[in-house]
């Protein structure tokens, strides 16, 4: 249970949150036309006659968009509806060329599913929580309006018009900004694992409509407001916090929350009512007569299922099963690129626990320093596996491994080659080690006396001095044994 509450004058209020996430489906062409979907093109160049709603134009659905939505549904264990339909949502706006959006109201492609957010003590999420997902439907994106290019005109760019979106509608199952943030992050991770959406929130590939209401614990749901098109996790959390407080203050001062659409202004960190859209609430949904019902066969569904990768939860469980800590497993599975990199490392023969520790500390640390993504890592999984292999088989020590890794990052050379070239191999040559021990003990006769007098903590000092004399290349176990013998 979340213990997040808003403290008002009349007591504590619980916040109820539902999210409608619009995720752009990864596809080459639009949902109902052959125009390209690439981001950032010249205005109105990626617009077909169909997208501009010229007279007599007709929609024909893109198989890949349907396939990606189905795969996404499977990834959240949802009911996949083999029979679905497209409906028209009718309203007038300059970014909506047809005068209706083709969407799915009555019979969506994907029915109920869920995802799980992990416990996060720091964020106040005490334990893992399952968040219900009501449905996923497929629909068209609208175009874009620009208001700042002309004193009396707005400009319409239809490049986005008709791009495929999945609208992923959660149940009102979240109770704190942190839970909502974790939900969006988890959803984004799943979409990126599946490959159905690039999750790029800055480019608008993912944006959320945030439904917020407040109630006294145990009461029925309050009236909700919907804040549209919030495009970062941070903003989603800020909207919830701000909106919950606004609603509590409003109710406590004798007002009532009206069900309305609101807009978030990140610069002022506040929401305001979008009165301009209020009179357009009668959308007159009806089945699109240009499109027949969408019927999916088993072969199509089988292919969708077979093409799904291992998903974050399964991967996390597998890692933990291999002895990796829950914390490291979370870190490694949060981003699909990191998880893929780590899997390649395991595949190349690295031992899971050591590999996880090395990736989360050494590799991530180095990438952070270099300002690089894991996809740009100068060291490949195979090269890293070679390095970790040298540690595992005792060829080099952990501390030497750090040096070798730095050299790998600088030169791009392989670990074994560097160890060979620079003579960094760890030695178990007892003669050479014994000789260095003898020197260390004679140079520190006072400390030897203290040790023998009972100050056993000095043992570590002798190990360090011997290792230093051996330039780090002595096998620490052998050093230990020989030192014990020498100190009798």
């Amino acid at each position, binding site marked *: 249970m979340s213990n997040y509450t808003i403290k008002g004058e009349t007591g504590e209020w619980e916040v109820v949150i539902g999210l409608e996430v619009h995720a752009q489906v990864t596809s080459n062409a639009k949902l109902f036309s052959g125009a390209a979907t690439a981001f950032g093109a010249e205005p109105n160049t990626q617009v077909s*006659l169909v997208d*501009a*709603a*010229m*007279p*007599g*134009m*007709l*929609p*024909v*659905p893109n198989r890949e968009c349907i396939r990606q939505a189905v795969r996404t549904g499977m990834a959240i264990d949802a009911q996949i509806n083999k029979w679905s339909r497209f409906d*028209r949502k*009718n309203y*007038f*706006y*300059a970014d909506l*060329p*047809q*005068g*209706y959006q083709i969407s799915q109201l009555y019979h969506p492609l994907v029915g109920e599913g869920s995802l799980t957010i992990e416990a996060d003590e720091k964020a106040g999420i005490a334990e893992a929580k399952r968040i219900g997902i009501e449905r996923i439907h497929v629909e068209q994106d609208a175009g874009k309006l620009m208001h700042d290019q002309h004193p009396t005109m*707005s400009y*319409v760019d239809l490049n986005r018009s008709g791009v495929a979106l999945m609208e992923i509608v959660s149940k009102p199952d979240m109770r704190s900004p942190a839970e909502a943030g974790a939900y969006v992050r988890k959803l984004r991770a799943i979409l990126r694992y599946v490959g159905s959406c690039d999750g790029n929130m800055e480019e608008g590939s993912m944006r959320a409509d945030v439904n917020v209401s407040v109630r006294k614990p145990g009461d029925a749901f309050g009236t909700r407001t919907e804040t549209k098109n919030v495009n970062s996790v941070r903003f989603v959390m800020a909207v919830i916090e701000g909106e919950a407080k606004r609603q509590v203050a409003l109710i406590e001062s004798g007002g009532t929350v009206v069900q309305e659409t609101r807009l978030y202004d990140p610069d002022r960190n506040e929401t305001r009512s979008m009165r301009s859209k209020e009179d357009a609430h*009668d959308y*007159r*949904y*009806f089945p*699109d*007569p*240009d*499109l*027949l019902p969408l019927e999916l066969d088993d072969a199509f569904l089988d292919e969708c299922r077979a093409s799904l990768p291992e998903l974050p939860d399964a991967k996390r469980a597998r890692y933990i099963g291999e002895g990796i800590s829950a914390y490291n497993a979370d870190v490694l599975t949060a981003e699909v690129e990191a998880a893929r990199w780590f899997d390649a490392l395991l595949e190349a023969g690295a031992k899971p626990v050591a590999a996880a520790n090395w990736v989360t500390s050494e590799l991530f640390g180095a990438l952070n320093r270099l300002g690089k993504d894991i996809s740009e890592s100068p060291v490949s999984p195979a090269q890293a596996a070679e390095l970790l292999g040298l540690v595992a088989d005792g060829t080099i020590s952990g501390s030497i491994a750090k040096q070798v890794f730095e050299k790998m990052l600088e030169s791009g050379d392989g670990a074994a080659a560097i160890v060979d070239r620079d003579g960094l191999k760890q030695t178990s040559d007892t003669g050479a080690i014994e000789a260095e021990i003898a020197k260390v003990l004679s140079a520190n006769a006072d400390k030897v006396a203290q040790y023998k007098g009972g100050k056993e903590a000095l043992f570590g000092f002798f190990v360090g001095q011997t290792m230093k004399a051996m330039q780090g290349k002595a096998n620490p176990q052998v050093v230990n044994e020989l030192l014990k013998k020498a100190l009798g």
Partner: protein
Amino acid sequence: MTDLTNLTVAQIRDGHRAGDFSAVEVAEAFNANVAGAKALNAFIVETPEHALAAAKQADADRAAGTLKPLSGVPIGMKDLFATNGVQTTAASHMLEGFVPRYESTVSQKLWDAGAGMLGKLNLDQFAMGSSNETSYFGNVISPWRRKDGGPNLKEGAALAPGGSSGGSSAAIAARLCPAATGTDTGGSIRQPAAFTGISGIKPTYGRCSRWGIVAFASSLDQAGPMARDVRDCAIMLQNMAGFDAKDATSLDLPVPDWEAALSGDLKGKKVGIPREYRLDGIDPDIDAMWDAGIAMLKDAGAEVVEISLPHTKYALPAYYIIAPAEASSNLARYDGVRYGLRDLPQGAGLQDMYAATRAEGFGPEVKRRIMIGTYVLSAGFYDAYYTQAQKVRALISRDFTAAFETCDVILAPTAPSAAFGLGEKTADPLAMYLNDVFAVPASLAGLPAMSVPAALNREELPLGLQIIGKAFDEQGVLNAGLAIEERASFTARAEKWW
């Protein structure tokens, strides 16, 4: 030399092929007729140069031995089909001056088959109407004139050519073109054909691509040919039909050679006569024609059986919910943003611009249907109206399926009356709608149906018989139509007065 404009499509095609005349001679003859028939107002745009260019190509192709199925045949194009570089208006002020940069699939197929375009034919605005009186560019006048029909019917009064394909029907009847395209949403090919003594077929829904045809009601709209006889309808249809990947409702079926399989011999066929189409108080001339048609089909070897289509009575009200609902949404794109009319009153915002543009650009009948459609889809009314209508539609379709278990084709009148006078029904929208009572059921069920001229009434105006077939059985429809055509020997034509 014979008047080339009296020839049928088949005769023009065959005569041109045989070298009896050149395609240019044919095009020039029709161009001259078009130019001389302004009084009929059948065309919104005349394109004599297009017809001539196609004719020159046809003559060259003949010399080269590369003739196409419609080489040398000029036709009229209903102004609902987008034509690349030629104004396309749907007879509305909204699209006045709109010049598409694309060609509809059906018109492209016709040009690819060698046909030439004489011009863009007038119609009811956005194909909404049964008399052609809703056109922004003025109504078409039928070439037909009434003989003395009694005290209530003025002799010689201007008559409606039917609608919405009234420009097509009038132009063919007046020999301005040998054939034309039409579209049929609730009778818009069949009723005007019946009113003007020509033939027309609406194929199975999905046979002809809707891509590039200005939409009225998507689940009903279907293109088809209009021509002087059944053979010409078959020739035209097989050059219009065919699968189109750009239309998600297009039927992925091969196009049969309907012309080659034409036969007026109906031995072994059963013809159904729907009991519910015998309306009380119907014009006795219509009843008499129907009975004569039954006799003709018996004579052609068919067995006649009585059938029942119990939900017939509800077809028209269902249609007047479904078609306006779809239209209200299909016509939302006419908003003054991307093409067509824009009316921007001083200081108007975006939503005011929409309202002003649409008030100015749509005629009264279009507005009426958009209003009805908007109402029946609005919150609280959707299920009572739209869902109920789609359920009734399913029942109407079921009626036909059941009937076709006992018969192969259905015979009925095309319309409940002959052509009415212009202005006679404009005051009462409902009276106008009732004119489609026999045509609408087949539209709702997506079935192929055609009208063939069968008789003259007592005012010496043409009357049409309708044949409705099973889905995909255009051949059965055409063959029954041919059997009637062979026996009705309908040769009457409008006397030239224009």
